[in-house]
């Protein structure tokens, strides 16, 4: 079984050639320790930048961070997925899954923020947004 994040990252890896052809770069950020990010990149065979935001400092600046409720901490502990061992801190904080398309001048052209982690922005929407940024 492949959890939601891995499914999403693999789907984005699949459109990496189109992203590059549109002159853009793809970057994924999670609060995982670098070693865990490496494991994710290797497992999902990702060739784009996978960055470690330990402490969620970048995610916080984007307004995406929330603390996981106690019942869900217990569920992750019982699944051998306790976040302190993965993220390197005891905060149990996560980013709400979000995908941005950022124009070269730093302006956000597309923002997809969804608290239901089972839903992710589709690859077609990313490519459409990138095409809209192309000089005509």
């Amino acid at each position, binding site marked *: 079984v492949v959890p939601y994040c891995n*499914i999403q990252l693999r789907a984005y890896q699949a459109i990496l050639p189109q992203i590059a052809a549109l002159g*853009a770069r793809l970057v994924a950020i999670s609060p995982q*320790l*670098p070693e865990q990010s490496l494991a994710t990149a290797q*497992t999902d065979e990702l060739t784009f930048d996978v*960055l470690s935001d330990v402490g969620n400092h970048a995610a916080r600046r984007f307004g995406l961070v929330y603390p996981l409720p106690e019942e869900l901490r217990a569920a992750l502990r019982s699944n051998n997925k306790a976040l302190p061992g993965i993220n390197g801190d005891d905060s149990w904080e996560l980013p709400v899954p979000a995908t941005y398309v*950022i124009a070269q001048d730093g302006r*956000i052209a597309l*923002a997809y923020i969804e608290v239901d982690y089972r839903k992710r*922005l589709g690859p077609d929407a990313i490519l459409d947004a990138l095409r809209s940024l192309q000089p005509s």
Partner: protein
Amino acid sequence: MGLDQQLADFKAEFLRTAPAGRAALYEAKIEELRAGFALEAAVAVEARAPDFRLPDVRGNPVSLTDLLGRGPVVLTFYRGGWSPTAISSCEPTRRSCRR
């Protein structure tokens, strides 16, 4: 198969195999988060993206400013891969772990 279908298939498989009560708990917590999360405070369309400088998997720093120097950027925040093989060799109290 498209991303939406893959996500839906995984969700269906989870609902079929999850321990009793787990699916209802996750559903309730998603709705709790939807009610409590300050979506209006999150960075949105037309805003300027905050800069960051973070290490990649080899420890090399990558900043948004550098990336934007070469073109548009697709940036995705994900929760984690939560790879069980990697986790099993990690001590919770340590800052980093060896694989």
